[in-house]
């Protein structure tokens, strides 16, 4: 809290967040568009496609989710392309809290359970996606998912409180949820803080909310729930990466970034890789520092990967739907 240079109060938070330099929307979007024109070919493309797969949180977040659907998703996560065993695995599966036991069971020995080489289970919590519930409910939601084995918690911030300027409420909730991520053995599940940038509306707000989430102890900042349009965009992600870069410079700490929702093609995903590499550095292209929250992206990457390996385009029927 030395950064704010005062005791952490509603007032000092407000002063700090409102003192951040502004964001020029036109300039930010131009820069993102410029990064999007990088042309990634041959060996760089092959590396990029494998990296994208390794960074995916393969996601299903529907009211209609069942243990069967989750099992199927997990099978895809473990073995994304049965026709090519060299295909890497995804980073995590992302499900609703009540589906965590099914995901853990389906993963079996592939479950990371705290190790580095397995697949993580991420659970959305805190009354996802709206976040409109009492703090007690949010904490119970979180603790339940952690107790069932969730390695990562994707929480949502209280956008209402944020837009009303009540930064202290948002801050305290993140701190409390982080505490609810504590496991019995004293370790913590990783906390991803969803800003829902589509509801924050301005880039200035996104920068403020990013700082707020990091100050409160989030391990990751995530753009969106995927339930609100627009979800992740390249300019928003660039802006969040800039905050993470600045935070690292100030504190030496590395915070992760997760764009989620709306990234469907390899071509788009590669633009994100370029943006990460040229903004915070290539070091961030690792699962503990960058993730894609996506479902249909994986299959497009697999098709592109097959094209690079075989020299031919196959078709959607040559990859499994889940």
């Amino acid at each position, binding site marked *: 809290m030395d950064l704010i240079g005062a005791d952490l109060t509603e007032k000092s938070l407000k002063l700090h967040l409102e003192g951040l*330099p*502004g*964001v*020029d929307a*036109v*300039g*930010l979007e*131009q*820069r993102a568009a410029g990064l999007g*024109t*990088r*042309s*990634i*070919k*041959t*060996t*760089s*493309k092959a*590396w*990029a496609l494998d*990296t994208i797969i390794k960074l995916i949180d393969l996601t299903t977040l529907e009211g209609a989710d069942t243990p069967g659907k989750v099992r199927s998703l997990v099978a895809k996560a473990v073995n994304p392309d049965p026709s090519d065993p060299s295909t890497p695995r995804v980073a995590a599966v992302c499900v609703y809290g009540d589906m965590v036991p099914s995901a853990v069971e389906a993963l079996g020995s592939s479950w990371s359970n705290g190790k580095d080489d397995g697949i993580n289970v991420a659970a959305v919590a805190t009354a996802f996606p709206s976040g409109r519930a009492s703090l007690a409910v949010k904490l119970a939601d979180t603790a339940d998912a952690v107790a069932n084995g969730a390695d990562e918690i994707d929480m949502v911030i209280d956008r209402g409180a944020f837009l009303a300027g009540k930064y202290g409420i948002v801050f305290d909730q993140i701190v409390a949820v982080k505490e609810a991520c504590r496991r019995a053995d004293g370790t913590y599940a990783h906390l991803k803080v969803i800003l829902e940038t589509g509801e924050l509306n301005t880039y200035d707000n996104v920068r403020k909310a990013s700082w707020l989430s990091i100050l409160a102890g989030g391990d990751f900042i995530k753009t969106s729930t995927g339930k609100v349009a627009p979800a992740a965009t390249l300019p928003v992600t660039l802006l969040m990466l*800039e905050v993470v*870069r600045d935070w*690292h*410079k100030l504190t030496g700490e590395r915070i992760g970034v997760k764009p989620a929702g709306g990234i469907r093609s390899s071509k788009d995903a590669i633009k994100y*890789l370029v943006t990460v*590499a*040229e903004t*915070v*550095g*290539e*070091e961030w*292209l690792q699962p503990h520092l960058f993730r894609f929250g996506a479902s249909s992206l994986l299959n497009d990457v697999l098709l592109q990967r097959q094209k690079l390996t075989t020299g031919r385009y196959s078709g959607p029927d040559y990859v499994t739907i889940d």
Partner: protein
Amino acid sequence: MTEIVKKSSFLDYAPAPESTSILHLQKSYGLFIDGSFVKGHGKAFQTISPATEKTIAEIANASAKDVDTAVAAARRAYDRTWSKLSGADRGKYLFRIARLVQERARELAVAESLDNGKPIKESRDVDVPLVAAWFFYYAGWADKLDYAGLGPNPRALGVAAQVIPWNFPLLMLAWKVAPALAAGNTVVIKPAETTPLSALIFAEILQQAELPDGVVNIITGAGDTGQALVNHPDVNKVAFTGSTAVGRAIAKSVAGTGKKVTLELGGKAANIVFDDAPIDQAVEGIVNGIFFNQGHVCCAGSRLLVQENIHDEVVDRLKTRLSTLRLGDPLDKNTDIGAINSREQLDRIRELSDIGEKEGADRWTADCVIPDKGFWFAPTIFDNVSTSSTIAREEVFGPVLSVLTFRTPAEAIAKANNTPYGLSAGIWSDKGSKILAVADQLRAGVIWANTFNRFDPASPFGGYKESGYGREGGRHGLAAYLESAGWSASK
């Protein structure tokens, strides 16, 4: 910060060269006079690629006699054809040219990058689209000249002699040719001797568009050809873009001849960054301001004026950002910094940089691998530059930024205006009222707020003081090619 952004495997993007197979170049090019290519009577010269020093094609050299033939062709076309056409019909030709430029955009972009050395992403995304935009814009004006603010029935001047520089070869051609034709003039234009290629492909486009013979004549050659052209007694208008020294000579030589003149000359623009600026975008703007087109831009933001309390932060961020710039093959789609256009220009940049160092400024150069062949200069920043330094006074016309500081808006304005030039300026602040107040007091023809190096055909462009006179672009750009008739006729 710099240690994280070090180049490594992914950032060393695999080569992504734009194919040159779309180009169908001749071994040698003649002069484009009266609708066809003819031999020149001077000693032909080679145009080379500044990135490889390899010859691209042999180019004809126009002698004084050839200049005479070209001007005569333009005069004939003016008297017999072009001045007889209605504005609507002239507009049709211009629209046709604009569409053909779009159709052949990739070819033109490749030619431009090959001959000039600029990155393909700039020729493809900036130069060529703007060329088309310029023709579209002035095509629309051709039948609306009564509304150009010059009174009813403004009249064309006649034959326009135009001499253009090598930094934006085709775009400068468009800036000159489009308004001249829309206003009803005919043209003899001379591209720079190091970058004639895109103009010669443009000549093919004129043939494709079936523009009447002689309306546009393109003659190639060096300084003496240009001199013969602007001094030709039968031209009515001289338009020049280039160095202040040459501009001054032209102004002298045409004085008293009755020729109308527009000059677009050098610049030493101030890019002013206030402490309430959107910092990340300002850094982008600084980079774009001075490293766009290797700094070969007359309106480049070559003097960074940064408020003292954010100086360290801005310079630090700038260095980090420059470390991600990619210098190399202009035809690679990932290249940010291409080749310096000529050995002569490279020598000039080196000379001025060495002077900057000797005069005590702190030199910092981005860590780039410089190719063995060709002309290259890595992005360079001079920090702690004083207002009296040579590099803060003289136009370097290369990827070299001078950093100066200021404490108050008044000091920023005084320092920004303290130059013999006055072409452009930039202001960075999140506070709109401050931007307007500062802009009001800057003596520069173009002022950008929270952006830099943005061009639009609807916006007039030109300078104060030694940056020249007259405006190009917009309605104002038409005035350079028209005379108020002072009477009205029913037509």
